[in-house]
């Protein structure tokens, strides 16, 4: 190995990328060449100097402030195209798809719900209706409300005709299993309302409670509010 080859391999040597044999050859040359030894020392000093390059510290509390600010801005202003356009299109897409994916799923066993013209549940036993929300982007701190007719209740919430909670929807499909129990045979309407930042979208689901188990289910078209 000559001095020129050493110069070419010096970077790899300093970065620890030389093979063992190459490194041994390099050391062999360094043992006999004062010029290359000095070159190596200068290079090592340069690398050490680069490690010493300093950066002024961040303003006190900047990291936490910046993270909090990002989180608060996300609440106020959803990503992409401004709130109205982004929200509207996401919800239109979401509810349009909801029409085809919302259905009845006896027992709530996680099987993809089928397309049904209407929802019918039995008074005899609770049944799970899966509501599917397909959204174009993640929605944080959305409020989801379910309004129930007098003859239907959500299992675990006896006598409550309105349930409302804050939730987040991830981009893509979000499934809400709604365990329903019919208390009287009659037709009714479940209203699912999704709200975010003063805008809301409503889905009306026609539900019929029968005295016996009925396999059919269905949903209606959404209305803008």
């Amino acid at each position, binding site marked *: 190995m000559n001095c020129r080859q050493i110069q070419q391999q010096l970077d790899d040597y300093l970065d620890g990328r030389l093979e063992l044999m190459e490194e041994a050859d390099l050391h062999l040359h360094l043992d006999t060449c004062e010029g290359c030894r000095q070159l190596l020392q200068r290079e090592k*000093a340069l690398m050490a100097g680069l490690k010493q390059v300093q950066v002024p510290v961040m303003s006190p509390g900047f990291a936490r402030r910046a993270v909090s600010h990002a989180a608060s801005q996300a609440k106020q202003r959803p990503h992409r195209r401004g709130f109205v356009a982004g929200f509207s299109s996401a919800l239109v897409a979401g509810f349009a798809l909801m029409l085809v994916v919302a259905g009845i799923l006896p027992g709530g066993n996680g099987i993809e719900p089928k397309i049904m013209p209407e929802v019918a549940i039995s008074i005899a036993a609770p049944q799970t209706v899966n509501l599917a929300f397909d959204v174009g982007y993640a929605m944080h701190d959305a409020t989801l409300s379910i309004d129930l007719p007098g003859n239907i209740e959500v299992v675990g919430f006896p006598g409550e005709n309105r349930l409302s909670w804050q939730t987040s929807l991830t981009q893509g499909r979000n499934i809400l299993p709604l365990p329903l129990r019919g208390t009287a045979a009659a037709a009714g309407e479940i209203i699912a309302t999704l709200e975010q930042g003063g805008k809301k979208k409503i889905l009306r689901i026609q539900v019929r409670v029968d005295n016996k188990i009925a396999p059919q289910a269905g949903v209606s078209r959404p209305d803008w509010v």
Partner: protein
Amino acid sequence: MKMSLFSRRSDNESSFEELVMPHVNNMYRLAYHYCGQQSDAEDLVQELLLKLIHRVDEMQKVERLRPWMAKALYHLFIDRLRQQQRRPLETMQPDQLEVLRESGDSGVSSEKLVLVSNIEQALRQLNHEQRLLVVMHDVENYTLSELTTILDAPIGTLKSRLHRARAKLREILSADETKSAAMACL
């Protein structure tokens, strides 16, 4: 995703904080190298976080977040540079030397101080691409493998670029040394 009737407020905020907090300082350091000014660096990091808050789900799946965030920061900086037609990095006046002087009790010898000062000046004379590469690899310790992700370039290309950038840096430093020696003889 399965939603729950019993879910309450999103835990996205806390997830986001857990994910990004360990890397904010790293991103700030990179941003400082890019921008050359503390306030600009903090602005850039803030802008990065505003972008990333909407990508928490994606971030949770990323195995190595530091290079992933560094890539996002790099692209943000390049976009900002193009859109705002900022002045070139070379004309900026970072206050790095002052910072080093303030840390006088750190055991840094005066010879090293001079060398680091010279290196910082030499770095500013590199072109934009060379400067970022040397800074990311040799100052901030990103591996070539990580840099392939950040800079979207093959490892062989980056090795060659890094070699040329270091050679240029040495050339600048040698020229400065020669100038200093000549001045000393006057």
